[in-house]
């Protein structure tokens, strides 16, 4: 029982982080119809920025804010200067640009901040005694903090998209770019904004996961998060915001429980399990559980 609660708690923490990355991927997909392979590496970059600021004595909360600003600028700049021109060349060139950014950004992190692991302070108290006991299982404030932060971030995203004028523009531009443009919306600007926002969501995810990642803050921190995050986004459906959250949480919990309790799969086939679920979902529903089909014209 104790271990079950611990595993659920672990699964939730990871699941929320996956959900954030998945959400970022969905926001990007709505703008550019592509999966941003570089999303997690962009997040790693801004997490490094935040870490670097904390080593200068700046508060982690201020560093978080700065990382979000930097993230927004980078995300928007990538959309405007690289992705949009690549889109005109087709789906494959766009994917290639993102694969290139994936490698290049990771390398830039190494060039700037070196290859060492850094232990990064989290947003929440992380002492050995900072926990509450639930049925003799320890739930650390750090985990609760991640859940709360992720819930707030997700809520804000949904509010912005569903309740604000900006969100209306984003939805219009994503659903029907041509008619959105005809009704006077600057579709390009909306897409740029979408990429910027996605990078902000990613930055939050990075700063939440780095202090508790087994890789600490290092060049390997975000790759697994990308794998799970993209699997989550696909499972939920790449154009469904709600699907991303459901996908992320499901995957986080399933990962924790399956590797813990299903002996045959065991810990070795950790990432394979997540991706196998993704493949099965795709075979049954080629655009994910909550994703909608797009019409293709001949």
């Amino acid at each position, binding site marked *: 029982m104790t*271990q079950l609660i611990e595993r659920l708690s*672990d699964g939730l923490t990871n699941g929320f982080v996956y959900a954030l990355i998945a959400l970022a991927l969905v926001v990007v997909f709505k703008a550019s119809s592509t999966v941003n392979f570089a999303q997690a590496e962009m997040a790693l970059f801004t997490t490094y920025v935040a870490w670097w600021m904390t080593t200068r004595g700046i508060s982690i909360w201020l560093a978080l804010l700065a990382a979000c600003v930097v993230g927004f600028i980078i995300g928007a700049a990538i959309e405007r200067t690289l992705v949009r021109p690549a889109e005109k060349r087709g789906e494959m060139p766009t994917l290639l640009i993102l694969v290139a950014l994936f490698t290049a950004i990771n390398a830039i992190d190494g060039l700037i901040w070196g290859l060492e*692991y850094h232990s990064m302070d989290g947003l929440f108290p992380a002492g*050995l005694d900072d926990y509450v006991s639930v049925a003799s299982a*320890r739930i650390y404030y750090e985990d609760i903090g991640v859940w709360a932060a992720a819930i707030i971030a997700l809520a804000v995203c949904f509010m912005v998209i569903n309740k604000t004028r900006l969100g209306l523009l984003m939805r219009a531009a994503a659903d029907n770019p041509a008619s959105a443009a005809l009704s006077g919306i600057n579709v390009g600007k909306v897409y740029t904004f979408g990429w910027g926002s996605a990078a902000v969501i990613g930055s939050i995810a990075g700063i939440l996961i780095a202090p508790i990642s*087994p890789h600490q803050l290092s060049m390997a921190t975000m790759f697994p998060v990308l794998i799970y995050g993209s699997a989550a986004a696909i499972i939920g459906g790449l154009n469904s915001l709600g699907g991303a959250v459901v996908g992320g949480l499901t995957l986080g919990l399933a990962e924790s429980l399956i590797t813990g309790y299903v002996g045959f799969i065991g*810990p070795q086939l950790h990432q394979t399990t997540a991706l196998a679920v993704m493949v099965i979902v795709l075979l049954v529903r080629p655009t994910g559980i909550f994703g909608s089909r797009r019409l293709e014209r001949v």
Partner: protein
Amino acid sequence: MHTSLLGRVVPTVSVLALLTAACSIDDQGSGSSDDGGGGEFTVNTENCPDPEAVTAEIGDTIKIGWSAALSGPVAATQVRVNRGIDARLKLYNESQKDIGGRTIDFQMKDDGYDPQKAKQNVAELIQRDKVDILGAVGGGQLAAVVDDQNEACVPLLNSQVGSPEWRDVELYPWTTSYLPRNDMELIASTQLIENEVEDPKVVVVYQQTESGTALRDAFDDAAEGTDLEIVDRIALTTPSDAASSARESGANVLFNATIGADCLSVPEAVARAGFEPELLIQPSACADAKSIYQAGGEAMDGAILFAWTVQGLDPAATEDEDWAEYAAAVEAIDGDPQDNYTILGWSLMDIIIGGLIEADASEDGLTRKSIIEVAQTLQYEPSMFRDGIPWSMSPETGNGINKLQPLRWNAAEGAFDPMGDALTLEAD
């Protein structure tokens, strides 16, 4: 940690002669056994592509070429080891030159953790750069180059590999390894566990990497025939899950079969899971006090490390002349002298230089042949090794570090406490 830098080569020829005579490993030798400082190991040069080059005296410059991962997932530790190597070389080239006045030209090629690039690097180092001595880091990379390097008869000294695999002088006469053999190290670990814990039940948490699985298997072997019961072997996915499984296993001892970031993350997770094993044993590769033990705070309290070098955070070890010389050299290249990986790197190169001095003094003079013959039998006291732990290479075991000092991390003091005397490593 005593005596000056000069004359640290200990002439223990007689002991060595006994050793090598007893196990007669030089049966493949092509004849004359020299009675110089090179001991009794002779290497067969008949099958070398250019036998004359192997016995030709090396000129004014000794060329050393390494292939190591300077990028990729393990580079984080390697760059810190390299600072020690660089500092030791700089000291040699700028103020010592006691290998017959020769300069050491050292180059390190990045293999990005990729065996194919390691193989290409070593081929270029041998054929184009015509190096006299090679070096390599990591089992996967060494595996890709060791046959080529032995066929070319170029010594590969002090490879950073803990596995016993490449230490057979019959198969790989031209290769030596620096790190203590992990099978021997873990025999010492199991002895310590038997001494310290009544009814020891061990849980092994292993990283799913080459090093992790090698440590897990070596621990299995070491525990055989002892009172140790291995209650579970847990493949590491997330440290928190591994820690709670370890707690549930009912063990009272935890062996953390990991390297790199998990040297810290596993003990941290163990503490957070409320698991308090009587002993928490770390492998000797989890060496750095600052980034692992100090960074882990309370969670690391009581963790046990087997060490052969002095510890940068130990005030008693950092007072003497040797330390002053080392620290000055490391600071000169903007390194952190307290970094234990840097101390490991310094010692690694210190041993190579010590061997070269001895080879130069041998009858043959400094040749590739004399270099490897000395290296396979070298007795030496590296300045940064702990008192009472020498470098004592034996071709029989292929192991140079034959004693390890168990240390227990004291979080309140921020330092290691030695646990009894150093343990002598024995092969199975």
